[in-house]
């Protein structure tokens, strides 16, 4: 993976491709092993995520103004956006779970956007993080489904609208798709974040070509334009993936509360 191309001058300058280095989890202090409670860059960037969320949703709304300031408007917008999503997708009886869903959304959206800062570490690009969140959603929804509906929750897999001979086959497919949910749910987010950031790093590695040879006159501007374009796309993806994760959570929650199709 760690490919290094030597420059025309024969080693004085070289192109360095380390697109995955940005994802390395390393201790903030010292070079020791990464243990469970080690203060790492994960800690730093999750802490910054918390600070940003507190800044927007707590400090931003501290005025409690009837006519909101700009930052309070954004906080209210985020609140209204997710609340409406929960209500529209999962129904009115899902509103007690709104704080949980808001927690997931606001964490993902801030982690994604903070990860777009240069030199940042993107916590949501790690499958360990997204998988835990996806499993949390999966387990919560499954347990909730059985608690609320008892065995009736299984009717989610028994599609009464289909012809009887097809139902067992459909049930098998439904069950498989049900258990694949957390996998797709988590890999979609981590994969999107990782891919975009890695691509930016690959293009960035081409940027110093102008120092190496005449070909750089063409390659360097192209790579800078490509970085800008991918960055713009990543800004979009950062929000959309948070949105997708949240709305899927709402859809799963709806299945748990109303398993009958």
């Amino acid at each position, binding site marked *: 993976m760690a490919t290094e191309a030597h420059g025309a001058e024969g080693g004085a300058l070289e192109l360095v491709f380390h697109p995955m280095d940005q994802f390395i989890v390393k201790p903030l202090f010292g070079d020791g092993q990464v243990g469970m409670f080690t203060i790492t860059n994960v800690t730093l960037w999750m802490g910054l995520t918390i600070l940003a969320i507190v800044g927007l949703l707590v400090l931003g709304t501290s005025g409690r103004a009837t006519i909101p300031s700009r930052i309070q408007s954004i906080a209210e917008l985020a609140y209204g956006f997710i609340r409406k999503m929960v209500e529209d997708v999962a129904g009115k009886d899902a509103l007690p779970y709104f704080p949980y869903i808001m927690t997931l959304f606001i*964490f993902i959206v801030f982690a994604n956007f903070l990860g777009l800062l240069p030199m940042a570490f993107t916590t949501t690009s790690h499958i360990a993080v997204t998988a835990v969140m996806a499993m949390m959603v999966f387990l919560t929804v499954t347990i909730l489904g059985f608690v609320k509906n008892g065995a009736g929750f299984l009717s989610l897999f028994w599609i009464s609208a289909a012809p009887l001979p097809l139902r067992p086959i459909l049930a098998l497919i439904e069950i498989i798709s049900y258990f694949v949910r957390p996998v797709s749910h988590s890999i979609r987010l981590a994969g999107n974040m990782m891919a975009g950031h890695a691509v930016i790093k690959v293009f960035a590695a081409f940027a110093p070509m102008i120092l190496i040879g005449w070909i750089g006159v063409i390659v360097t501007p192209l790579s800078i334009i490509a970085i800008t374009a991918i960055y713009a796309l990543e800004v979009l993806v950062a929000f959309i993936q948070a949105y997708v994760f949240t709305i899927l959570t709402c859809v799963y929650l709806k299945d748990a509360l109303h398993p009958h199709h």
Partner: protein
Amino acid sequence: MASETHEATEIAADAAHGAADAAHGGAEAVGMPQLDLTTFSNQIFWLAVTLVVIYFVLSRIALPRIAAVLAERQGTITNDLAAAEDLKAKAVEAEEAYNKALADARAEAQNIIAQAKADMKADLDDAIAKADAEIGAKAAEGEKKIAEIRANAMESVKVVAKDTAKEIIAAMGGKADAKTVTAAITARMKG
């Protein structure tokens, strides 16, 4: 291939960068850092801490506060709308009162005009009647005077006629009987 190339390039990189690479601390991605299981427990622990903190911040402070602000705003809007509705009703009422006052004033003016007209007419009629009466009286007086004058004239004529008749009779050698002459003249005068 990965490990051999890696080692070779590491040496090359060290030679080239020297101290610069020390900052990396040998932390160079081999494959995907996402699949490095040794970091999982660390990430999961800090994720759990983060999510719990965010959940408490949201559920204890942020969400109730935003909900309260939104509810308060909704209330303010509702109140303001009601107040606006009230004011509108009042404005309509005021306009009605104004229109009514205007209509009343107009009717009163109409009344006053009619009354004045009637008064003037009565006065005029009075004056006309008075003038008529005066004219009548004057006319009667005039007539009386004319009759008087006529009577006086008649009397004068009678005297003149009598005298003349007496003179004529005397001139003709007769002797005028005063009574007969008077009777005759009176009869003639009547005729």
